[in-house]
């Protein structure tokens, strides 16, 4: 029989149970409890997060090694759940959703979070596949949730088709790995390849196809094409959710697999590193360069997300302790700055009704506080001190240079210079551009939970930008307690 250590699975179980509880609550009590749904769901996620943090320090696996818990996965889960809490709070202020099906909406978000947690902890190819698909399928629904908004539906369909194709390609890679090793366990695959006489190039091809699915989740070139369209069309809280939580889960799974597979890819290491380097450089360059031409804030942030994934992949390429610290730090930084920027995008859109750069004109006059906050988040995204984004990039570059990946560091530095122009356009709109028409429009009220989110993100961005030590310590701790 199989031994199950439920304590390790508890955070995910709480999220799933909470999801169904919320849906049931909504179904049974109908409109009377709509106001309750968000606070209750936030509490549920917070509780799951507490339970997860409680697990920190263990390195264990359960259900016959299909589920791995280590400190790295805990940290990633905490990031995912923090993102979930943030977007639940932002949902409160997001008007287009209305009250329609809020129970289902919130329930699905909780389900997606649990799926991402499974993805982070997957120790088996089948587990990973199921978790990735779970995340994707729920995300397709959430992206297309505003079903009467043509943009949302279009985004949903695009996301769905692109995701389905990439998951099919990933499955082909997985099936090849199975055929090569006769097992689906990730550890078993490495052993099988190491001990069997397999052509390393075929392993390389299989792993590359396998990674296509994760590249899709992360939005890395060449699987980045869905990102701008989906970011633009999705309900904005969901955009933020996909941008942060889903990407974190993808990065976590990617890093875990890259680290586990490293020994078996060593025979083909040059090729593997070159492929990854290309992906990283292309992501950084394309993201920043095309981002410059965007006029829609959500699209701009989408291209910014593409470029950020390039920087993160540098950390994965570098590997070892420094690389891992860089990746973990980057993900934490990314959580705060991206979430903050999206929160402000939601506020501005709710107040002015648009996502275009034109809607940001004279924001410094109409709502100076929002303009200032946006400036700080954009500065952080651009990687300028004293913000958390600066250290994120700094650690990545330092790690790359230390391990001799000079080319990556140079391209990264250049990309971040160009990236500055991209963010500067928003600053220009907020502070310099003139439009007297827009001053006449009233600026709507902003709900307190959104302020709370922005405040927390601001604290994270600034505090860890000045004093990054805690995060670095946690990241090092992650590295020491990395399962597998």
């Amino acid at each position, binding site marked *: 029989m199989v031994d199950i250590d439920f304590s390790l699975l508890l955070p995910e179980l709480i999220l799933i149970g909470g999801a169904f509880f919320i849906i049931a609550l909504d179904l049974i009590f109908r409109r009377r409890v709509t106001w309750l749904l968000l606070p209750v769901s936030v509490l549920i996620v917070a509780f799951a997060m507490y339970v997860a943090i409680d697990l920190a320090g263990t390195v264990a696996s359960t259900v016959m090694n299909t589920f791995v818990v280590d400190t790295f996965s805990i940290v990633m889960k905490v990031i995912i759940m923090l993102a979930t809490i943030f977007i639940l709070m932002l949902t409160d202020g997001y008007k287009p959703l209305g009250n329609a099906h809020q129970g289902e909406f919130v329930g699905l978000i909780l389900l997606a979070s649990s799926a991402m947690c499974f993805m982070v902890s997957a120790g088996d*190819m*089948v587990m990973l*596949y*199921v978790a990735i*698909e779970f995340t994707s*399928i729920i995300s*397709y*629904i959430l992206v*297309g949730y505003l*079903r*009467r908004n*043509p*943009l949302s*539906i*279009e*985004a*949903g*369909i*695009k996301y*769905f*088709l692109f995701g*389905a*194709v990439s998951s*099919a*390609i990933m*499955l*082909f890679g*997985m*099936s*090849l790995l*199975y*055929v090569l090793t*006769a*097992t*689906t366990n990730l550890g078993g695959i490495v052993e099988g390849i190491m001990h069997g006489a397999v052509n390393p190039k075929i392993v390389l091809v299989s792993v590359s196809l396998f990674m296509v699915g994760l590249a899709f989740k992360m939005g890395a070139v060449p699987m980045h094409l869905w990102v*701008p*369209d989906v970011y*633009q*069309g999705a309900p904005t809280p969901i955009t933020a959710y996909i941008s942060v939580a889903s990407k974190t889960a993808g990065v976590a799974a990617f890093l875990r697999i890259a680290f586990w597979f490293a020994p078996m890819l060593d025979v083909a290491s040059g090729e593997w590193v070159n492929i990854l380097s290309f992906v990283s450089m292309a992501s950084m360059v394309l993201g920043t360069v095309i981002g410059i*031409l965007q006029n829609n804030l959500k699209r701009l942030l989408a291209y910014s997300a593409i470029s950020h994934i390039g920087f993160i992949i540098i950390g994965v390429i570098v590997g070892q302790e420094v690389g891992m610290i860089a990746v973990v730090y980057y993900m934490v930084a990314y959580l705060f700055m991206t979430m903050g920027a999206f929160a402000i995008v939601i506020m501005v859109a709710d107040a002015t009704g648009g996502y275009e750069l034109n809607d940001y004109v004279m924001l410094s006059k109409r709502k100076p506080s929002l303009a200032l906050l946006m400036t700080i988040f954009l500065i952080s995204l651009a990687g300028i001190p004293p913000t958390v984004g600066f250290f994120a990039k700094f650690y990545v570059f330092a790690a790359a240079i230390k391990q001799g990946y000079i080319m990556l560091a140079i391209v990264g530095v250049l990309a971040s210079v160009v990236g500055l122009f991209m963010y500067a356009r928003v600053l220009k709109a907020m502070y310099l551009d003139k439009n007297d028409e827009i001053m006449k429009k009233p600026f709507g009220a902003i709900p307190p939970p959104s302020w709370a989110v922005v405040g927390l993100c601001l604290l994270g961005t600034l505090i860890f930008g000045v004093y990054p030590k805690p995060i670095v310590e946690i990241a090092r701790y992650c590295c020491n307690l990395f399962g597998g």
Partner: protein
Amino acid sequence: MIGSINILDILKPELICAIVRVTPTHYLYVAGIVFCIGLMGVMIRRNAIAILMSIELMLNAVNIVLIAGGRAYGPKTYDASSFVIFIIAVAAAEAIVGLALILAAYRHMKDINIDDMSIMKW
């Protein structure tokens, strides 16, 4: 026999054996072909449902690879079969969601041609 070229030389016994004696690799070839047909379908069909069907073809190809691979490692390896069951279940879920999205889109545009869905671009 014409000249020195014997057409029947091509039909070497080993070659015939290789063609006739079915090995897992044959199944892999079939799977590869079906996979690429599915991929082509995704790329060229306008109708969203047709694209969905092409995706199902790709998944079907993966199933063939897995079952053939599992069989090659002996009759008692059931992980491939289990994997296939998961794939089928997930494919079902995917189809449900995909068709729901397509129906929602149809309500809007009265059409489900994918190349009409390009409000968002560059």
